[in-house]
């Protein structure tokens, strides 16, 4: 444990009852509305008929249309949704299996070369995708792995595995050391103590980190755009494909934007406390 970041807050002794400040509350609510209005506006476009979409002045009341949805279904865009789920899901599962033991080991053991290895893990995460996409493109084209599920699942490991190891490590460090020793005193082997005692305690951390990995894979664009193709087009890649020679299909794009945002919103509400920790690579304990 450390002193600077997670000093345990003692129970508030000074203020037994909370009084809310209406001014500040209003200010934050206004900020939230301002921040979220563009998202709301995009959702409106998803239901706006073509005739009023570009109207000046802006039309607020209109009869919602499902034409844009129909266009997407007719053109097989639901496959992209399924592709997104498959690729993100598989890569997340793989990350959990590979990364959990490593996260635990990095948190627990002061083995030789640990810092350098841990830095290496971080460095793979920090490298911009544009650095890795060229060699991957060449290697995949040689191996015939362009436009395959396996190709994308593997390439997503480059950012998610290192992320998972880093963040889960910070969860592992929160577990008291004595727990493991107590388990081993009770006769568990080291592996047994890990599997039977620590893993159940780590489950919330694993879930939170894995869900963030899922979201990163879900949101990923560059690799999917360049290494995917007709077969494994994911949802984000569908967006630029709607900029057609006949014009930009705004309504359809808005729907994809909406569908793509829904899982993110669910995650944000369910995991709000862990997201801070995740997005800061474990540096802040949310």
């Amino acid at each position, binding site marked *: 444990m450390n002193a600077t970041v997670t000093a345990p807050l003692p129970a508030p002794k000074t203020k037994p009852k909370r009084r*809310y400040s209406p001014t500040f509350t209003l200010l934050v609510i206004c900020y939230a509305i301002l921040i979220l209005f563009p*998202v709301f506006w995009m959702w409106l476009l998803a239901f706006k008929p073509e005739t009023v979409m570009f*109207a000046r002045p802006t039309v607020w009341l209109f009869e919602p249309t499902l034409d844009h949805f129909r266009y997407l279904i007719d053109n097989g865009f639901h496959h992209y949704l399924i592709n997104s789920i498959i690729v993100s899901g598989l890569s997340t599962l793989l990350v959990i299996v590979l990364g959990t033991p490593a996260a635990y080991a990095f948190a627990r053991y002061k083995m030789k070369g640990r810092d350098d290895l841990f830095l290496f893990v971080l460095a793979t995460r920090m490298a911009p995708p*544009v650095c890795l996409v*060229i060699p991957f493109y060449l290697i995949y084209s040689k191996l015939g792995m362009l436009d395959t599920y396996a190709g994308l699942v593997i390439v997503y490991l480059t950012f998610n595995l290192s992320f998972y190891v880093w963040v889960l490590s910070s969860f592992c460090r929160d577990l008291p050391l004595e727990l493991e*020793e107590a388990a081993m005193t*009770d006769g568990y082997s080291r592996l047994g103590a890990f599997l*039977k005692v620590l893993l159940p305690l780590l489950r919330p951390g694993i879930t939170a980190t894995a869900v963030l990995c899922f979201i990163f894979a879900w949101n990923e664009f560059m690799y999917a755009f360049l290494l995917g193709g007709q077969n494994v087009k994911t949802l984000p890649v569908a967006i630029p494909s709607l900029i057609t020679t006949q014009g930009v299909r705004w309504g359809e*794009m808005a729907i994809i*934007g909406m569908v793509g945002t829904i899982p993110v919103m669910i995650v944000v509400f369910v995991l709000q406390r862990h997201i801070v920790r995740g997005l800061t690579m474990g540096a802040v304990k949310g």
Partner: protein
Amino acid sequence: MTATDTPPAGAASASPPRLAHHRESRWYPYALIAPTMITLTVVALIPFLYMGYISLHEARYGQLRDFIWFQNFATLLADPRFWNSMWVALVFVCIAVPIEFMLGLIGALLLSQKIRFRNVLIPLLFIPSMMAPIIVGLVWKTMLAGSWGFVSYNILENFGILKETSIFASPDLALYGIIFVDIWEWTPFMMLTFFAGMQALPVNPYWAAAVDGANPVQIFFKLTLPMLAPLLFVIGLLRLIDAFKVYDTIFILTNGGPGTATESPSVLGYKYTFDFWNIGQSSALAVVIWLIFFIFCNIFYQVAKKRLNVF
């Protein structure tokens, strides 16, 4: 405690409850990290080394030709587009990140007040930072679309700016448009991480300050800011690294245009590879970008480790 659930039969004699235990299994931690290290070596290190190898070759259209030492790097450093992209990245990072930082700090202070509905508001504020960057770009493409976009028509045109055209079509303003979108996307992230950091600060100094009759401004500058400093540094650096590699939003909003006004290093790397098919050149660029990153990354790690005690 869960540890007492079901100890395997007869195991009590097998493992003595001593710390000597840790010495006998010197290879155990390496066995645990092996799957991750091997995977990262295969999916990151080898491609990276391969990229370094390509960067020393004349390579076009996916074909490796002559070994030409560092000529790709020389061409790269002589290419005004490279320096333009570095300049774009510099302007982008130097404007966007400090603004996000300041707004984030102010927002975090605001959030630390006695806010009602905080549990609902916090996740709502997170949405821009968690959305796919490409969708963020799309959202602002519709907001700022020339003539009919919500902001361009209802706000900007009333002030007589950018009539009938999008900010992203203007060579002078496009970069600032992208900076604005980045600020929209990442200020909430800064705000919420700073807020989380503030919540975790020890309370005793605050009580002492209250006893001494310090005013809020003094408390902020003398207590909160110094205690939060390492965290602010780490978050700032993390954002800096991310801002430097921005790609998705630029791709959908301007794709580097108009001209090269918003051509960030990532966009330029893409163009070298897939527009000019000069992969030797783009690999050289990628090596340069990666070197810059490695330096940032190292600073991040050292500071996080020493000052935050979290790694």
